[in-house]
């Protein structure tokens, strides 16, 4: 396990083109700092977020995933952010069944005017993930990581 003092979480953030990406942009132009741990991926809408994107992020080494979109009622595509909300809730349950800490998946609404809020949410999420420690899903679940285990020998001993 990595030492938590040196552990820098890898976080994938999905942003929507119309609100949350612009919030991130505003944070940038207003010189509001937020940690570089988050790698933002811009989608046209949070409703475009295929749960497979999240699963792939986790399978490839992300320690946490942040999904962002327009506030309820303010979606550029009328109501796709509600779809994102429902997918998020079902995804969180499914991942919990696979043993993932629910806190590693976060949903944040941010309008284009909320650069400060966006930066604040990223800051707090990075600290939450730092506290949880590295996930290591990617490395551990790779087929090449399979090493035969003398389990029966251990258990019977």
């Amino acid at each position, binding site marked *: *396990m990595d030492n938590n003092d040196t552990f820098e979480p890898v976080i994938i953030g999905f942003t929507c083109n119309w609100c949350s990406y612009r919030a991130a942009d505003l944070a940038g132009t207003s010189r509001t700092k937020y940690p570089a741990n988050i790698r933002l991926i811009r989608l046209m809408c949070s409703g475009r977020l295929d*749960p*497979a994107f999240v699963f792939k992020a986790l399978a490839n080494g992300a320690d946490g995933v942040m999904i962002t979109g327009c506030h309820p009622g303010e979606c550029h595509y009328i109501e796709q952010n509600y779809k994102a909300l429902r997918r998020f809730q079902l995804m969180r349950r499914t991942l919990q*069944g696979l043993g993932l800490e629910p806190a590693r998946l976060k949903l944040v609404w941010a309008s284009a005017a909320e650069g400060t809020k966006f930066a604040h949410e990223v800051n707090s999420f990075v600290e939450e993930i730092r506290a949880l420690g590295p996930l290591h899903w990617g490395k*551990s*679940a790779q087929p090449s990581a399979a090493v*035969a285990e003398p389990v029966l020998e251990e258990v019977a001993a």
Partner: protein
Amino acid sequence: MTANAKPKFAMYWAASCGGCEIAVLNIHEKILEVDANFDVVFWPVAMDAKYKDLEAMQDGSILLTLFNGGIRNEENEHLAKLLRKKSKILVAFGSCACEGCIPGLANLSNSREIVTTAFNTISTDNPQQIYPLTSYAVPEGEIHIPKIYPRLRTLDQVVEVDYYMPGCPPESHQIAAVIDLVIQVLQGKAELPPKGSYIGVGGSTVCDECKRTRHLKTVKSFKRIWDIEIDPELCLLEQGIPCNGPATRSGCNARCPSAGAQCIGCYGPAEGVIDYGARLVSAFASIIDSNDPEEIDRILDGIPDPTGQFYRFNLAGSLLKAGKSAWDKEKV
């Protein structure tokens, strides 16, 4: 053995239940065509054969091997690699070999839990804590129980696979069709599909084959099939039954939905689906008729085990491949 001009056929089971072998036998008289056209050289369920006989065969000398079962232990892996070497065409046969299937659900537990569950639970009467000997001396030498891997892997996570034939088990009419095709190829009347293809399947999803009527789906609650009187004509998902049809590959003629039971996904992900569970999460979440987080949560309570619902057949072959507890021993 006299020289036999017939092409050679093999079938093997790794971590599986044996249902695939029964499905092969369920092709009835067609099995005689298999015998007429092939020399069956290795098929532990149906005939006596020793691993050393297989080892002695020339590399690439078996034309067609149907491999069912996932790779759970060293023996499974050894046979997968051996059969890959000896076979021209290796088919991942059945859901276990293609995507892990039910044995793959053990990827939600670590191997120690699996062994203790098998030999030492409330339902197992084992007061003296007797476990199998891991090695035993016989006059011919010492024999060992193969070691278990921390996770079950699909066949193509271990060796290169030429074709995939999903299903739990593959439908017998599909098996018969594939055997027909191979025989036609042997007679020069047909060509093999491109390597890596799914064979013995339909081209779309179970929904496309399903005869039930479909409208715009809006679901206020999820139900189990025994909770309601099921409308025989209407789409099950529309009735709130969590049916996995939208993400599942066609090929079974929508057997379960036709019989009034939800599709549980045994034919695996449809063409183009990256992650079966993710596709279903997307589909189910999209039809929920609520925008209120608390109400959505209440509706989702109707799917008590989402991981089992979405990954019953596909966990080992999914993007995440296993539950965290399969490898994260410190947390267990």
